[in-house]
């Protein structure tokens, strides 16, 4: 009687332990089963897409993983030189935004001197994720400073369906009509920031170019290389398109003529000096500097052009490889539609090719950026000094030839400096090219100062 007590207890413990074991093994079995299932799951078509649906939520029903990631471009995260901080502001009737990015003008007031007389000296903020592109353009104070044309929307909204509607199915006609509209009128025709349809064909999901300015720009560039009548949508490879779709907007551009046609100045090539030569030949100017009277050029985010000069482009690495790297969702391999800085995603963005620790890779990038930033600061100091000299020379009645010579140096130096300043990689996309351009800019600006001293 007394002996059966412990034996019973031992048996009960044994049953409990076995039960826990059985519980764990069954949980493992179910987990393995689920992993097997997710590797089979691929794609369910729940809506029919067509060429007139610009609402990304509709596309997202068929592609929920891509859509979820796309929605995350609302994130505001800083890197050392880029990224945005969420700065709270009090909404007004004119500008209902309650959060904006930090002001670059406040961070470095030299920019106000450099861009004096231009709308950028009034409001210029760090750029935020794709999700904000339309709001940030609609409400920037630059809209108040200058009457903007509908052309601006080419890169701040999903305009493909709007162009199709305006042109009755002819994108090129719609493009021309939209360029001619005042911004406020054109703004009413669009609803979304960049959307699925801007890069993807609705029937096959293949990448495609929807922006006429890129089609014309790349045609001019290829013609220079001896390829006549280049048609990007039939002649580009898939890997080329993984950079070209981004280059529909992340490029230097200007509004040509009174019809304000969006134009990429690539007929002489993609180097900063090629583009400057193009502008010198066409005598285009963005604005006249308030202090120096020089007809100046403002460079705009030439990421594609800068990347083209770098080692990654030469190795066939496209924008999407680092900014939208492949990731696993269950058993599926998809490209990450949360477009962002590779520095926030080093494992997928860099370590697929570069088998080094994350800290080492980040240090390499930041070393390049530190060096570029130092050169950029030197170029800015030089520019500010030239502006002061030119202003003084005008006030003390220097001869018009002397002024014209210095203004020409100001124009060239300003554009080359801005080419690196406006480019969103602080030199990383092509380190030596960025340094070469800044070196050239500093030299031109100092030559401008010397020319005023009568040498």
């Amino acid at each position, binding site marked *: *009687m007394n002996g*059966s007590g412990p*034996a*019973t207890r031992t*048996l*009960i413990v*044994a*049953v409990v332990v*076995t*039960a826990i*074991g*059985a519980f764990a*093994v*069954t949980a*493992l*079995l179910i*987990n*393995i*089963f689920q*992993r097997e299932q997710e*590797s089979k799951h691929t794609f369910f078509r729940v809506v029919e897409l067509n060429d007139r649906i610009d609402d990304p939520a509709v596309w997202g029903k068929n592609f929920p993983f891509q859509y979820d990631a796309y929605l995350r471009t609302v994130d505001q995260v800083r890197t050392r030189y880029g990224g945005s901080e969420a700065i709270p502001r009090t909404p007004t009737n004119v500008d209902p935004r309650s959060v904006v990015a930090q002001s670059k003008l406040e961070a470095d007031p030299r920019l106000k001197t450099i861009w004096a007389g231009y709308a950028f000296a009034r409001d210029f903020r760090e750029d935020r994720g794709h999700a904000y592109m339309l709001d940030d353009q609609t409400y920037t104070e630059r809209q108040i400073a200058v009457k903007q044309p509908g052309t601006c929307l080419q890169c701040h909204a999903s305009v493909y369906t709007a162009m199709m509607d305006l042109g009755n199915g002819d994108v090129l006609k719609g493009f021309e009509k939209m360029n001619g509209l005042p911004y406020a009128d054109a703004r009413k025709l669009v609803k979304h920031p960049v959307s699925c349809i801007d890069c993807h064909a609705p029937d096959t999901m293949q990448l495609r170019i929807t922006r006429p300015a890129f089609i014309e720009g790349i045609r001019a560039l290829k013609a220079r290389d001896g390829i006549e009548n280049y048609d990007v949508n039939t002649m580009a490879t898939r890997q080329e398109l993984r950079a070209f779709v981004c280059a529909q907007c992340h490029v230097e551009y200007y509004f040509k003529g009174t019809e304000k046609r969006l134009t990429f100045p690539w007929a002489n090539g993609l180097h900063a000096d090629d583009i400057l030569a193009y502008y010198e030949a066409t005598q285009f100017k963005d604005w006249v500097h308030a202090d120096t009277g020089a007809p100046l050029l403002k460079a705009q985010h030439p990421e594609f052009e800068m990347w083209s000069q770098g080692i990654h482009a030469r190795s066939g690495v496209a924008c999407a490889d680092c900014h939208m*790297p*492949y*990731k*696993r969702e269950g*058993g599926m*391999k998809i490209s990450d539609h949360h477009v962002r800085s590779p520095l926030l995603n080093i*494992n*997928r963005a860099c*370590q*697929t090719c570069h*088998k080094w620790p994350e800290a080492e890779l980040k240090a390499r990038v930041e070393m390049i950026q530190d060096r570029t930033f130092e050169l950029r600061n030197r170029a800015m100091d030089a520019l500010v000094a030239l502006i002061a000299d030119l202003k003084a020379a005008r006030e003390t009645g220097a001869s018009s030839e002397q002024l014209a010579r210095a203004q020409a140096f100001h124009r060239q130096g300003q554009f080359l400096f801005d080419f690196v300043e406006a480019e969103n990689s602080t030199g990383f996309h092509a380190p030596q090219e960025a340094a070469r351009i800044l070196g050239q800019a500093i030299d031109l600006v100092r030559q401008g100062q010397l020319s005023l001293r009568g040498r």
Partner: protein
Amino acid sequence: MPFRSALLVWLLALSMGLTVGVGLYTFVYARGASYLTDDPKACVNCHVMRNEYDGWVKASHRQAAVCNDCHTPDGIVPKYASKAYNGFLHSVAFTSGHVPDAIQLKPYTRAITDHACLKCHADIVEALRVERGQELSCLRCHRNVGHQ
């Protein structure tokens, strides 16, 4: 009391039997036996190494070496000890879902792979091998031969 004891023994027998049964089924369903072989397909039972497998299929060493030739040490005991240890870590990682998209060698698995080159190429690199301090790493330059 004998009746109660007998009942408990039966209950224990039943629960142990069930556990062993479910365990065996799980082993078979998860293709557990395949992990004891050298078949590269075993490494893509789960999809984490799909890219590496696809790369190996197209790489130069496909004709000469399978995964285990380069990723396990020589000798039957070290080999299966390494398989057991890494296999356990891999199952934990995959079950918990904590796997980076670009998977990486740990220092000791890298050492195994570095050393594995010598299984075939020892004669060729004999003159290159520096015994003083750190040995030269084959992988530092030749990391693409197995898969990329």
